């Protein structure tokens, strides 16, 4: 491969064009020259798949308060979230929703013309007393409506787009982040974007699991790039297994189905969530519902020939209601389960859905490096969305808080990056800038060994599904880690058959696979060392939460070999900005 590189200079470069990246870009573009680089065309980013809603205490249908929302978020996180970030996000939520509405997001409406709201898992009134209608939505296409609105707004603001550009390396000069190296998928050319500030908004990595709700592109590339430059992955062991993935396919059925009245049934036709969460039942947070479903199956009450899943019933709310509020679900059920949900229940089981942790930031989205002794900033680097962790999700994210996270922290990242660019001059590139990324892509472009993507990705997702998903033990995870090491070794005997410079998906998949193995190793090492159960991390060998030893963020760094994870910890910021701390309590719903 040639090493001819084209150079660009920008004030701000945003990596990733989902909701967080586009909101950052449209804001930054109002102040300075801003570029977005994205592996796919912006409207094809994974935010497009978000269905059920975005939460904000607007109180359009009943009394609500941001402080209640903040409490729910902290409790939902199993007390691992940073409470200053939770206060920041939930307080800003109403004005963010209004801002999205003003730029055109086609929210569903109440009879008097306000933004409509529906209940969602874990969202309650008066600090846990009853479910509350807090999720604003556009039918069951909220993410789709949001992403297109933000894309169109950023075009209007003059953002410079570089679509189908795959990021290879985060660039630094003496500790200062100053750009990114990219590969143009359409023609194989290399580009360096030299910028005063860089925003990472690169999304999640649930493609490491066999059953997942994620797009092909959700392979943890941004995490891997940041970790190779000394950043950590905060709370890496916490994934969200969404309860209602379509059985066999993993595609998501929104929690909005339960928000609109849907219920989960076991083989005996029993609404089993009444036993696990007597107050809010099927609208308990996702970690609790997923684990309850898995227990039903373990105890022999699953449905189907293998008794390995449960049913989601929604037909009782009426076909007209379903077609108005959940039309996308009707279509997905037909295609992926062969079921008409206006007449029959949908077969579901948990599906890997969301990476709760990420590149750690404060609530100003400045990337931080830290341990139990303190924190420092990474100058010039900001992060937002699923790839980042301001930490508002902790050990378990509440439904609808992901879209809120990405618009709130996306906007903050855009503002902060623009401010940083205004206050600092451009730091030049080092002499051999991009050489690590170039070496990595050349390694795979010329790879002529034995193993291929289909084989290794199959083994990776199989072992992660069997040994690192809803139930975990020391033994299973240790075996998982050993397998991951074997897969990593196979990457040195890999074969990329495709040698074309044009749309070489074989090469991109090799780079993604290499990143997926790295992040799989990182989260597995973190999970082995967290000897407790909290939120989405449930261990059969340590079934209880252990606040005395583990009320702290995990921070996974890489050793100097850039392959071996090193697990460290950092204090949870339990002090909010203006209100009292919510001290840890047992999570009962």
């Amino acid at each position, binding site marked *: 491969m040639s090493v001819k590189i084209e150079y660009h200079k920008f004030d701000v470069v945003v990596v990733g064009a989902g909701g967080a990246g586009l909101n950052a870009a449209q804001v930054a573009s109002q102040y300075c020259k801003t570029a977005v680089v994205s592996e*796919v*065309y912006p*409207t*094809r*980013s*994974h935010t*497009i*798949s978000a269905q059920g809603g975005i939460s904000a205490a607007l109180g359009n249908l009943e009394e609500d308060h941001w402080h209640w929302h903040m409490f729910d978020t902290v409790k939902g996180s199993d007390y691992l979230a940073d409470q200053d970030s939770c206060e920041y996000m939930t307080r800003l939520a109403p004005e963010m*929703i*209004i801002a999205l*509405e*003003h*730029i*055109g997001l*086609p*929210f*569903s*409406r*109440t*009879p*008097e*013309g*306000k*933004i409509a709201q529906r209940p969602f898992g874990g969202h309650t009134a008066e600090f846990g007393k009853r479910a509350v209608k807090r999720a604003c939505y*556009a039918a069951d*296409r909220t993410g*789709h*409506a949001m992403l*297109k*609105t933000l894309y*169109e*707004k950023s*075009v*209007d603001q003059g953002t410079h787009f570089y679509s189908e550009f795959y990021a290879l390396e985060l660039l630094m000069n003496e500790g200062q982040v100053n750009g990114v190296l990219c590969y143009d998928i*359409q023609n194989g050319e290399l580009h360096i974007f030299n910028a005063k500030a860089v925003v990472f908004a690169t999304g999640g990595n649930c493609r490491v699991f066999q059953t997942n709700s994620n*797009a*092909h*592109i959700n392979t943890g590339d941004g995490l891997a790039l940041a970790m190779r430059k000394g950043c950590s992955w905060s709370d890496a062991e916490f994934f969200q297994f969404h309860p209602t993935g379509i059985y*066999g396919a993993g*595609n*998501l059925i929104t929690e909005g189905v339960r928000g609109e009245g849907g219920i989960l049934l076991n083989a005996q036709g029993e609404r089993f969530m009444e036993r696990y969460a007597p107050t809010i039942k099927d609208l308990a947070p996702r970690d609790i519902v997923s684990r309850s479903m898995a227990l039903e199956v373990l105890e022999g009450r699953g449905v189907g020939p293998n008794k390995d899943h449960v049913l989601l019933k929604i037909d009782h709310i009426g076909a007209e209601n379903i077609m108005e509020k959940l039309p*996308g679900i009707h*279509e*997905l059920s037909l*295609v*992926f389960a*062969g079921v008409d949900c206006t007449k029959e229940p949908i077969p579901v089981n948990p599906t890997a859905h969301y990476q709760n942790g990420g590149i750690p930031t404060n609530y100003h989205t400045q990337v931080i490096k830290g341990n139990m002794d303190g924190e420092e900033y990474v100058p010039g680097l900001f992060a937002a969305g699923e790839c980042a962790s301001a930490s508002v999700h902790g050990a378990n994210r509440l439904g609808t808080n992901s879209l809120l996270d990405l618009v709130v922290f996306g906007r903050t990242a855009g503002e902060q990056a623009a401010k940083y660019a205004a206050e600092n001059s451009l730091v030049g590139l080092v002499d051999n800038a991009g050489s690590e990324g170039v070496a990595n892509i050349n390694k795979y472009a010329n790879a002529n060994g034995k193993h*291929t*993507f*289909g084989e290794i990705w199959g083994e990776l997702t199989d072992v992660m599904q069997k040994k690192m998903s809803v139930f975990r033990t020391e033994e299973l995870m240790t075996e998982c880690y050993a397998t991951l090491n074997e897969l990593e070794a196979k990457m040195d005997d890999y074969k*990329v*058959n*495709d*040698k*074309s*410079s*044009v*749309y070489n*998906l*074989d090469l991109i998949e090799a780079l993604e696979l290499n990143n997926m193995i790295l992040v799989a190793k990182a989260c597995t090492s973190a999970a082995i060392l967290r000897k407790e159960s909290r939120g989405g991390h449930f261990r059969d060998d340590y079934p209880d939460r252990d606040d005395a030893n583990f009320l702290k963020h995990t921070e996974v760094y890489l050793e100097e070999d850039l392959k071996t994870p090193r697990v460290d910890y950092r204090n949870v910021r339990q002090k909010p900005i203006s209100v009292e701390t919510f001290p840890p309590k047992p999570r009962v719903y």
Partner: protein
Amino acid sequence: MKTVTFEVFRYDPDKDKEAYYDTFQVELRRPGYLLLDALNQIKWELDPTFTYRRSCREGVCGSDGINVNGVNMLSCMTKVEDLGSDHLVIQPLPGMNVMRDLVTDVDDFFNKFITVKPYIIRKSPNPDKEIYQSPEDRKLLDGLYECILCGCCSSSCPSFWADKKYLGPNAFLRAWRYIVDSRDEGAEERLPILNDKHGVWRCHTIYNCVEACPKELNPTDAIVKIRKMLLDQQI
């Protein structure tokens, strides 16, 4: 296990002087096997040099519009068994420049969509709260806002093939989505663009776009309504 013959369009500008077709036998490994499963099977097991676009795998990101036996569709939402044939000819979307295999150049398609100013244009000041919109006004956006920008409509349209500057059904659908939005005040800015000689009058109302849309939207209806609005203005 049932197998289906996939006759696939191939072209790599790095090595091919002209396009050709490759034939693969694809196994349908479960009921409801999707076209995208079949394309992945070809790539991951039979020929890793085969290339195509895909992302969300559930019919919302719009990456994977392709042409199968002459009809445009999304590979991730189409069951092979529903096509009712043991021999499928797989081609890139027609009327667009082919970059490689099933991958087309979509920059022109995206650029045209942007020219109709697809965003809310407000002249009145915004209220502190949301701009109220009645459920009836909101309902006007149904069937319009769901477009996923896959290009199945425009690339099925003979006017789009013949006139390289024709904006295409997708752009008109998007323009109409904003014109009918009760919050928008930008119709006057959009109508001259739509009234251009490469605008709505190029449509011959043959409804290919309606047939092709995988989300069952109706761009022709939007075009007819835009025309009516243009005519009403002249009167």
